[in-house]
């Protein structure tokens, strides 16, 4: 409980430091919302060229999927964004000080750099999700599962980013694209998984289970899968991925040698 309080205080404090850069916040929000408009435009072009639907999914149903993935990315950026700094900190030896703090290093590290353009992704994603859900005729009661899916999706996304960061701890260098690849995998989960080849579906359901956090819940919302799967699979995926990421993090830092001066 004491550690949770420390984490909360650390998060709030760093959030306040981010609020210092107000113009940057405005630009970041514009960029985040713009990215979503961009994704929607591409989706619109793809749908236009495929006769209006994808693998039996109507545009409004795909919009729900789109909104959920955007919100998951936003939550991850708001609460656990610091992981993106791993390559820089490793090269400069800036992890030394973090590792001697009297708290568990991973959660403290993850929570101490919230990114405020996340609000654009969360707000924009929510707007797309609600509007698309309304057009698709989804029951508002179904959205009661949203907090669970967001929390699980956010944990799965962050865990994959942590796994990417453990590669950087072991093999020093500027491997930022591993992090971008994680985001790309999440962002492409906004299309129905059934349009991808079987092997890719397996990757997105098992190895990097964004599909369990996004596709499965929305499939249940749209009546394609049973609700038990939508309520059970995301927490299981999150629990497994968090355990794996934490274990990999601890392993990666065993025998860690500082760099820089």
């Amino acid at each position: 409980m004491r550690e949770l309080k420390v984490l909360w205080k650390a998060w709030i404090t760093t959030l306040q430091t981010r609020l210092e850069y107000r113009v940057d916040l405005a630009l970041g929000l514009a960029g985040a919302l713009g990215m979503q408009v961009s994704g929607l435009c591409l989706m619109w072009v793809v749908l236009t060229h495929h006769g209006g639907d994808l693998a039996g999914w109507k545009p409004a149903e795909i919009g729900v999927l789109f909104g959920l993935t955007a919100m998951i990315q936003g939550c991850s950026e708001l609460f656990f964004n610091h992981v993106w700094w791993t390559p820089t900190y490793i090269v400069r030896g800036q992890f030394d000080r973090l590792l001697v703090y009297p708290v568990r290093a991973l959660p403290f590290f993850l929570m101490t750099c919230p990114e405020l353009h996340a609000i654009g992704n969360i707000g924009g994603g929510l707007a797309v999700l609600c509007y698309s859900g309304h057009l698709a005729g989804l029951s508002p009661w179904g959205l009661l599962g949203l907090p669970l899916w967001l929390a699980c999706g956010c944990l799965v996304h962050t865990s994959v980013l942590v796994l990417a960061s453990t590669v950087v701890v072991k093999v020093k260098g500027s491997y930022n694209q591993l992090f971008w690849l994680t985001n790309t995998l999440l962002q492409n989960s906004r299309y129905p998984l059934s349009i991808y080849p079987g092997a890719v579906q397996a990757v997105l359901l098992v190895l990097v289970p964004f599909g369990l956090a996004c596709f499965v819940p929305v499939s249940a919302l749209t009546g394609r899968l049973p609700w038990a799967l939508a309520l059970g699979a995301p927490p299981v995926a999150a629990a497994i991925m968090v355990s794996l990421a934490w274990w990999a993090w601890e392993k990666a830092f065993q025998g860690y040698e500082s760099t820089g001066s």
Partner: protein
Amino acid sequence: MAVDRSRAGSWRAYGSVFTHSFSALLAYSASVWVNLLAMAAGFAFTFMVWHYALPAGPAQAPFFAYLALAFAANFSLGVAFERYVGERIREGLIATDLLKPVDYSWFFFCQASSDMVFQGFFGLAVLGVSFAFLGPALLPASGAALGLGVLSFALAFVVQFHLGFLFMQMIFATHSNYGPFTLRMFMHLTFSGMFAPIDFYGGWFGALAGWLPFRHVIYTPCAIYLGRLQGAQVGQALLSQLVWALVLMAVSRFSFDVIRRHLTIQGG
């Protein structure tokens, strides 16, 4: 901050920046390979989405040739100095950069040129692999298309560099690199034609992209090379690209002279 520009025309200094930057890149070639593979894996999703969405037929091969070329061009022409400059500003180290007796934008231009040449080799490797799958669809439409396409790629680099340099200057005002970077990435990813040729979008979106310079980074050179633009369209596109390159160069240099005077050095 007043800057001594008396040695700003020292081409030996800029040549040295280029060669030293290139040598530094050679030391990190492993990370470039990893980054390339990660980017390619990400971009494969764009291929898969279009492979599903596009009806099978003769239009598929030219379309995928465009996507492969767009990916190679995007990788080769990638510039991202927002994070570097953002940190230098926050830590006050930008002062030492600005005190160097060279022109700041040329300094960065030489550094970015070395990145482009280095990444270009990897871009060619991508095209080689793509050729194995796509075959003749990836060849230039004609000898003239090859020549004009290469010219257009050179202009694309100038446009891309000065766009990046302009957005980077925002950091002098915001003191944080996230906002400018996110904004530039949004505009680049949306309007450059990276995920589909601009002519595929049509309507208001195509018209809007036509008014912005971002299409000249990816779409224009790729479309000229592959023959998506033909006849008078090629001349118009190249002229527009040249005008944008000159305008962006003038604006970014002028605005940098202005914004530099308002810089507050952090740290101490």
